[in-house]
């Protein structure tokens, strides 16, 4: 994988899977504890519920129904790299029965693909820089830090 993109505000770290907190726990002055789910998991869950209802051949070209194992794998990925305030991915079903998580903002395009057969991989496009591709398992910190960069560049409020 070319590292030419890893400049300016983009992450330089590649390596092991980070562990992020995916829930906010708030302790108020009156000693009330409140736990909230991140907006991205609410959006992801809602979208998945719709996609799980897709019948076979939903695309007219022989697509398979969404694989539950891909959903679980995608969820594990999100829990491993997403902190509470990061942008929710757009979730697209693939013809093979997998799913693709997509972020298109801040001048960057990130697509993470989970397939029923094979390992999860990512694709990153950033202006005129060479596109990057690789296996998710080898680039979790890179992806997590890039998503933080996207959050910083995006001035939209987090959906609640």
């Amino acid at each position: 994988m070319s590292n030419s993109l890893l400049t300016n505000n983009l992450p330089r770290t590649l390596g092991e899977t980070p562990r992020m907190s995916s829930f906010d726990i708030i302790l108020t002055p009156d000693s009330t504890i409140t736990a909230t789910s991140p907006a991205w998991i609410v959006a992801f869950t809602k979208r998945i519920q719709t996609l799980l209802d897709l019948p076979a051949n939903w695309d007219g070209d022989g697509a398979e129904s969404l694989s539950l194992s891909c959903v679980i794998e995608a969820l594990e990925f999100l829990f491993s790299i997403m902190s509470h305030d990061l942008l929710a991915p757009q979730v697209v079903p693939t013809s093979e029965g997998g799913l693709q998580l997509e972020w298109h903002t801040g001048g960057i395009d990130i697509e993470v693909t989970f397939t029923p057969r094979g390992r999860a991989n990512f694709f990153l496009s950033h202006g005129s820089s060479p596109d990057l591709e690789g296996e998710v398992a080898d680039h979790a910190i890179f992806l997590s830090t890039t998503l933080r960069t996207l959050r910083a560049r995006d001035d939209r409020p987090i959906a609640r």
Partner: protein
Amino acid sequence: MTGPSHDNENSSLPDITDDLVMWRRVPPDKVVYDDNQKRKRPTSDQFKDNINGTPMSVWDAKRCAGVEKVLEGYEHFYVASVTAAELRDSGMTIVRSEKDGVGHCEVIGPKTKSIRSDWAKSSQWVVGPPDDILK
């Protein structure tokens, strides 16, 4: 770049010139909002070969019998366009197959993630999604 092509297998059918607009059917679930482009567009995943191994289908906009024909049986789908030149510039060969009707073509060649992403981002809606979905 505009001119005749020699992609066609069947010489009795008209050439596919570079300026020809090619239509690709898009299921509603394969639309994303691209904040970089400030618009909805097809996902890159929509521009790949079929899972049974047959090449990606497109329709010659001039020769097919209109979007209604392309969407026959798929009335809730959308239609996006790319030019023959864009496909060829990515190293593709376009062949008239007509197996799905007049104007039906197949796009033959390796469709890398970068290539599919470029097509998705440059594609234009012929029949697009309403504004009230996704964003």
